């Protein structure tokens, strides 16, 4: 067995152990990225191999938490892919404006940047008091960060540029207060967001959503897990609801494809068809 094959085996054994001890299921995560993240975690841990690490990881919750952070934390930006948020504003929001109340599920919200972006967009489009965003992530530590809505001040320049390109109607600096090295988002933005832990690999669906946003999360999943997650989304979306994926993710050749139509070319925004009578 080559060293690389041994590493693959160690990853498999560790992920099985992690699932049985902690209930986090990474067994259906794509190997290339998982291997890269685990190798990175290992080199910072001072341990020589994953087999050596496994004994401690399965007994020491605090150590496992560092691994969990290494495997699951995704970085994001506010208004990441401005063209996507522009398409959302121009092509999806006009539909949402006709609803009395809009429910949004943001799956894999990480530290909350895109959930807050969505709140800003909806407030600017006149939906104040008429929407709720359920922002979920597998990692509770990162959710606490999301809940705080505090980001490094140095990021604001990039976020501001994204916001403007995404068709923002106000001045981005109206949405935060600078304090020392940090920018604190206005509490008003948080009023309509519920942050909650949810694990796409094992947890159940959410009821009757009008829009689901899950961008660049499923690229880390193998095919069966992707299908499971898309099934969850399909069960959670009301007819006429919208499903937004990352720019390099598509619904082509998926089990649920037939029930959806793409409403933009490059932005991967899909609408669930109304069932035929």
């Amino acid at each position: 067995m080559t060293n690389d094959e041994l590493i693959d085996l160690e990853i498999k054994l560790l992920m099985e152990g992690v699932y049985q001890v902690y209930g986090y299921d990474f067994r259906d995560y794509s190997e290339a990225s998982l291997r890269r993240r685990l190798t990175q975690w290992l080199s910072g841990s001072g341990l020589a191999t994953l087999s050596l690490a496994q004994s401690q990881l399965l007994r020491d919750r605090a150590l496992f938490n560092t691994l969990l952070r290494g495997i699951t934390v995704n970085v994001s930006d506010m208004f990441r892919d401005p063209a996507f948020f522009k398409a959302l504003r121009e092509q999806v929001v006009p539909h949402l404006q006709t609803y009395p109340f809009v429910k949004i599920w943001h799956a894999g919200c990480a530290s909350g940047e895109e959930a807050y972006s969505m709140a800003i967009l909806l407030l600017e489009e006149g939906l104040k008091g008429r929407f709720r965003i359920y922002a979920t992530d597998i990692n509770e530590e990162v959710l606490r960060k999301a809940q705080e809505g505090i980001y490094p001040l140095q990021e604001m320049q990039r976020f501001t540029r994204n916001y403007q390109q995404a068709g923002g109607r106000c001045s981005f600096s109206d949405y935060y207060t600078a304090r020392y090295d940090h920018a604190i988002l206005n509490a008003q933005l948080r009023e309509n967001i519920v942050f909650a832990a949810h694990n796409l690999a094992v947890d159940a669906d959410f009821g009757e959503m009008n829009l689901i946003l899950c961008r660049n999360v499923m690229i880390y999943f193998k095919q069966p897990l992707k299908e499971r997650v898309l099934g969850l989304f399909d069960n959670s979306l009301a007819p006429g609801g919208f499903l937004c994926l990352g720019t390099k993710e598509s619904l082509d050749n998926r089990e649920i494809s037939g029930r959806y139509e793409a409403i933009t070319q490059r932005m991967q925004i899909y609408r669930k068809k109304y069932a035929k009578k």
Partner: protein
Amino acid sequence: MPKNNGRQFKTVVIGVSTGGVSALKLLLGALPADYPLPILIVAHITPDADDGLAVLLNTLCAIRVKEADEGEPIKPGTVYLAPANYHLLLERGGTLALSIDPPVNFARPSVDVLFESAAEVYGPALIGIILTGAGSDGSTGLLKIHQQGGLTIVQNPADAEMGAMPSSALQLLKADHVTELHEIPGLLLRLAPRKP
């Protein structure tokens, strides 16, 4: 003749930064449409770029050039470019994967990320190439290819529009071939498996 010691190469990976468009036009433009190996490329492009570079190269070259799609199996006679703002990785079994993990060497896509994952999959059956560019992305990845027994090619820094990236790689390892850009297509043809 380059020595490939009877090795059957399976894939080519290329990393390029500043000066990449003209270098890729020249290199890919000189390959036939039925070049027998898949070619995976990380070129540093701005995060908000669309698939314009792949479309352009596809128009100019005989060989098929496309932006990499997630989960796509790699095929001979096809060039896959990493999409803007995503890392490109190779899975065992030869399918493509994308990630939005943090930038490596200030780059996403990063050459190191592609090279390291491809080296783990193909080992001695991999050909790695570093072309013109600023910075040092790709150096540790090329070293990994070398350590796994793969074949390494570096554009002669003096021949490159920007010599830093090739120089940086050459500081880390002794490449199998240090050569001018216009010689690389011929080299790749000689290294490719013969048609049955």
